[in-house]
């Protein structure tokens, strides 16, 4: 067991957890933040993407102890009060999802992209987002949503 202290979505959290606790289980099971989804358990599908110290990570591959002393942002921490993050709004406006289960991961990965590169080209978006599988949309509307959020476009 190990005591860890993490800022999760801006709030300090202290927990005693087993050393082998995965970050995804820490978020979902210990903290009840079920917005982060587990799709493949091997870091391929991207559904569990969260930001650890600003960097996108597959929380199904990261140990919770790796977040000790650090900062984790999940899909639950993106909106400010009742104001959605521009990416969240764009995914709704542009139909960037159908079933919605990959969406938290898609949005967190694309947030990391726009943080690193606020005006990516479509090719750069695809290159960055290839680690996030979507089985419903064929990706077109996801790419469109990210482009719109980057351009701060609000209407389709």
């Amino acid at each position, binding site marked *: 067991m190990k005591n860890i202290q993490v800022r999760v979505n801006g709030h300090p959290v202290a927990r005693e957890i087993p050393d082998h606790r995965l970050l995804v289980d820490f978020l979902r099971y210990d903290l009840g933040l079920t917005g982060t*989804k587990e799709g493949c358990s091997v870091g391929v599908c991207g559904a569990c993407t969260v930001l650890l110290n600003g960097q996108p990570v597959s929380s199904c591959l990261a140990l919770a102890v790796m977040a000790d002393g650090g900062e984790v942002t999940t899909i639950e921490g993106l909106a400010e009060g009742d104001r959605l993050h521009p990416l*969240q709004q764009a995914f709704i406006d542009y139909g960037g*999802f159908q*079933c*919605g*289960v990959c969406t938290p991961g898609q949005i967190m990965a694309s947030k990391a992209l726009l943080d690193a590169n606020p005006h990516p080209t479509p090719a750069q978006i695809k290159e960055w987002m*290839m680690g996030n599988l979507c*089985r419903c*949309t064929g990706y077109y509307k996801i*790419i469109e949503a990210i482009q719109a959020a980057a351009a701060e476009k609000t209407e389709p």
Partner: protein
Amino acid sequence: MAVKKEAHHKYRVVGTRPIRPDGIEKVTGRALYGADYYFPGMLFGKILRSPYAHARIKSIKFDKALKLPGVRAIVTADDLPEADRKPQQMGEQQVSPYYLSCNVLARGKVLYDGHPVAAVAATSPHIAEEALRLIEVDYEPLEPVMTADEAMKPGAPILIDDLRNQEEGPDQPTNVATHLQFKRGDLAAGFDAADCVIEREFRTATVHQGYIEPHASVGIWNPDGHATVYTCTQGSFTVRTLATKVLGMPEGNLKVVPSEIGGGFGGKTTIYCEPIALLLAKKTGHPVKVTMSRSEVLRATGPTSGIHERVKIGVTKEGRITAAQVWMAYEAGAFPGSPMAPGAMTVITSYDIPNLLIDGYDVVVNRPKTCAYRAPGATAAAFGVETVLDELAEQIGIDPLDLRIMNGAHEGTQQPFGPVFKRIGFIETCEALKASEHYNSKLTGANRGRGVAAGFWFNAGFQSSASVYVNQDGTASVVTGSVDIGGSRASMAMIAAEVLGLPIDEVRPVVADTDSIGYTDVTAGSRVTFATGMAVYNAAQDVVRQLKERAAKMWECTPDDVEFDNGVLRTRGDVLQPQQLTLKELAARFIRTGGPVVGRASVSTGGAGAGPAFAAICVDVEVDPDTGKVQILRVTIAQDVGTAIHPSYVEGQLQGGTAQGIGWALNEEYVYDSKGVLRNTGLLDYRMPTCLDLPAIETILVEVPNPTHPLGVRGVGEVSIVPPPAAIANAIYRATGVRMRELPMSPPRLMKALQEHRNSREGQAAAGR
């Protein structure tokens, strides 16, 4: 994206593109999917699975596992009643409760790698997993039978001892569950009348639906025998029927609460975790959650069949198809029930052919029991026919789309299995593709080619219920039993808003559990916007009828004297003093005019499905001659979509189906070793398309209204998956000169074919010297 004829001037809401009502929940992480439920005192279930493809279970010992601290219960097939063997109509499917039960927990024999044998409930998932290792199962391994070809050979090992079919008779054990045949005309005469006859053989691999959300269920059992299961499913009522049959309990004692669903594509139309979670809950007295891992999903939930297909088609030199013969064997997996029948019913139904013979076989093999996958059976079947048509068009020198248009089914064409088509849009769809900018553009460059293909899917109808409640402030709630898998809340709200004359954001769509709405069949068969939409339309009309009665009472006239238009009630000016009241004004007076207004409707569309749907696709590819990798350069899909309620979401269905068809064509396949053990049980090796693999999929919506629906709605969800594999094979041929007749056309397989092609060309050149 191009939309043909998208101007529904007669509709106010239908045909517009509002944002979806469940959008916020899904972008904020609030939407609860199957694995997201937590209850006080909840235990975690894990499933012990067979490491053998085919074996007899001699004994199961779990004393040691039960002693592990934290373990609360272990169940095996002995905890289930022996279910009825006779196939029964359960929802949309014919299912033998016995086979279903044996698939949930193996009884006597395991029939595939991953077949559930026992399940544990413990205080943590890790303890449950550890307990699995302490369960001792004594197996007697048997020879696995992995393909339909092997399974149909005389003397093949038999999977199910008591399986019989009509042809072979009651004394002959067999692996063939069903042989289906459709016949028409004089086949020999038809082929004699042809100028060109081509016969080819095809094979397709087992592929999975690949939904991103693994299956998960939470079972809760009350001491009075009433139970609840929270589960990710496409059909809450289907789960209720199937699970209660397997558990031997009255149907009314189980409440099924559908979670949000993270994709299904047909794969979540049966039961896996549900009865196990319920059984463990019953045994422990605690809520029990069973969540599958990805490898469990791939090993042990229903993929769709690999098939073996032979296609023979004859045409005149003018391009008229004179005869066609198709033979197909579908691998059902461990128990009968492949999508062979819909495969046979769709394989060549797009065409008007005088002489036909179609044979289909449903064959059990040591693979997981297949489940529906988007247009079940049609994609693999179309691969052969649409490739042979391409060869024929080339042989007689006509445009491949013209060949399809010339022979295309239309209103009045009889389908091979009997019914006559009503108004359909196959020819319009092919013509729209032929007229597209894409098809008429020039494709240049080495190793590049363009291919086309078409597809058909009949779409389902079935039963649905809906309620529409008008609130006191004049807003409305629409309650249905249809799980929302890709935006159907939006289309349900739009249909009610259209009828009631309300703005879309004043209509709240709700997906109810099985105790809270009338029976509703699965979200499958492209049926929800059609059939549940029809129930919503009728329920909203029921509201309108009642509103008119209320107004008539107030105005002291008859309901027939009241008109309702765009949210406003009026007396008919020609008869009476003009009176007027908005829906909102009337709603405020419900309390004094007879109480709340509740509109209700249920529909059973009987045999009439959601209107036949057709798609045609044009694909440009580039083949890397050194690796065999195929890059998709451009794709355009045209589809007959009926009235598009929400055109963006219709486009989304076309794009999603096309993407899955591309994955099926190029990369996806189950890889078994010689012992029948699945070797690619993760998404690293079961390779689904990423955004880098796909271009922007261009769509052409061809809106031919469906005459059997009040708004002209046609099912749109499935047919888009059907044409891509054949279109890509045809494009690869144009790029390389090689005809691919096996799926997937993955780099190693294509590389081998390219090498053989080069060798044979060099051989021919050497012989010519």
